[in-house]
């Protein structure tokens, strides 16, 4: 599943103000809600679901990257966005490093295949150091969109 099929570009945040884990999750879910991707009366419930998932084990997978996610019945297709924190946020990552790059994903519970395909694409692209470095250095949402488009056109991973 390509980025353009689930990343909502109106909700991309390249200048996260949050300084801790819960605030980052709140800021990104808030951004998805503000851009009309999530129902506002479900917002708190989705935040709590993502936080609860983090309690099972951090989705900070190392190298300054985290993939906070949940499955939630209020969405009918995978909804994702990207957040960048230039200073990094403490996220209890596997390698103990702060996280600069966040891929948030909210998937419908009854479509596990779609969730897997979105994760598959994210993980494939994240294995490319150039892709990660370009994203972390992005200054505008437009920069991020362009990098995602290039990734969708297989310009990073063969």
């Amino acid at each position, binding site marked *: 599943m390509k980025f353009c099929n689930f990343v909502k570009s109106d909700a991309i945040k390249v200048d996260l103000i949050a300084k801790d884990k819960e605030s980052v999750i709140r800021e990104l879910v808030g951004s998805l809600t503000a851009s009309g991707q999530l129902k506002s009366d479900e917002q708190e419930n989705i935040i709590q679901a993502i936080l*609860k998932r983090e309690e099972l084990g951090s989705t900070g*997978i*190392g190298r300054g990257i985290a993939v906070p996610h949940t*499955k939630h019945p209020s969405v009918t297709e995978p909804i994702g966005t990207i957040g960048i924190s230039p200073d990094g946020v403490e996220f209890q990552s596997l390698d103990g490093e702060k996280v600069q790059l966040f891929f948030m994903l909210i998937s419908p519970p009854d479509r*596990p295949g779609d*969730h*897997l395909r979105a994760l598959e694409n*994210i993980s494939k692209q994240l*294995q490319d150091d150039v892709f990660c470095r370009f994203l972390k250095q992005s200054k505008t949402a437009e920069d991020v969109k362009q990098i995602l488009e290039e990734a969708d056109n297989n310009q990073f991973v063969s």
Partner: protein
Amino acid sequence: MSETKQCATLVINNPQGLHMRPAYLFAEMAAKYASRVEVIKDDIRIDGKSVLSILTLGAAQGTEVALEVTGPDAPDALSALVQLVSAGFPSEKDSESEVGT
């Protein structure tokens, strides 16, 4: 210490497939052993100790994968990993219905 190689073929049987939580549980278990752990799906061969690499398989329920474990503790490692996958990643089940991982 002798290098032994152990192989097994497995079918992913948990309904949600190898999403992030089971990928993490698999990599965590693999990392407990000195042996090299590789997972093979079709013509893709990945490092079984890397969560990110496991996720690149996009292995849904019913997917067949091969495990290849090479090293001094290969028999123990293979047995532990086979058990984890065959049991459908038991320690994620309680949480799955409630939160989804």
